[in-house]
């Protein structure tokens, strides 16, 4: 497999930045998953798709819009009717899903090289993301495991809450450097640590 180079390399500066005198409000990390895959069900095949994803990943997807699950290594969430983003830190997920999702259930699209995954965590994560996206990040409206499709100034983002104070963001690779830079600017006020 081709070696992947992060688009964030020129702007990725590990360490503490911004107003961190009282402690960093958020921690930013590029998670660099080996696999980012979109799975889509034909109309009426959504449950069979969820069952196939569960068989491959071990993640039980709750029903309903935006529902998802994450176990630290793998993650999956709905972001549109019949569409699920499935992520694995290891390579090879697209082939495994293709084997489990027959052509009468739906389709599998490997986005691993087309998306950049960014994790934001910490007490101020909701605050920082609320500056960028016009959606409700409160836990009651955006529970753990759930996913959302939204955008900031025409940069599309898929967002999953993967912890009480943690979100994983997936943005187009070609926009990732610009988005990362903006995220750093938004986080400067609360202080941020790049891991």
């Amino acid at each position: 497999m081709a070696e992947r180079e992060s688009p964030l390399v020129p702007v990725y500066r590990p360490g503490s930045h911004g107003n961190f005198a009282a402690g960093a409000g958020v921690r930013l990390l590029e998670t660099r998953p080996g696999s980012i895959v979109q799975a889509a069900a034909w109309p009426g095949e959504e449950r069979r798709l969820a069952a196939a994803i569960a068989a491959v990943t071990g993640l039980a997807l709750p029903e309903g819009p935006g529902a998802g699950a994450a176990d630290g290594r793998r993650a999956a969430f709905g972001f549109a009717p019949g569409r699920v983003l499935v992520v694995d830190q290891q390579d090879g997920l697209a082939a495994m899903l293709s084997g489990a999702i027959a052509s009468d259930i739906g389709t599998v699209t490997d986005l691993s090289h087309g998306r950049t995954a960014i994790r934001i965590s910490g007490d101020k994560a909701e605050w920082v993301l609320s500056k960028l996206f016009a959606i409700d990040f409160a836990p009651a409206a955006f529970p753990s495991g759930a996913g959302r499709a939204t955008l900031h100034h025409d940069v599309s983002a898929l967002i999953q809450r993967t912890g009480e104070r943690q979100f994983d963001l997936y943005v187009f690779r070609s926009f990732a450097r610009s988005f990362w830079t903006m995220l750093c600017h938004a986080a400067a006020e609360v202080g941020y640590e790049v891991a």
Partner: protein
Amino acid sequence: MLIACPYCGPRDVAEFTYQGDANRPRPDPASTDLDAWNDYVYQRANPAGPHREYWQHSGGCRSHLLVTRNTLTHEIAGVAFVRSAPVPATKPAPAAPRKRPASRKAKP
């Protein structure tokens, strides 16, 4: 203005793309009825009040939606997936009588 996407919930209008009047019956693609195509492409009822229109949640789930919006108040009376909504079956009333363009006249 907020549009309550049936999948994503209420979202800012900036996430949506307007796709036009949802009251137009599209002629059969094989049709050569110029008046029917002229109505489809150009003629609009342009009501001051409730209006059925297509929007796409292009900045979210990318679903195509049928929205009933009041053009005076922007109040939204309903949002549904286009997939589950009925296609307009009847032609809207013609706005005004019109002449055929000169270029369509039979040549002597």
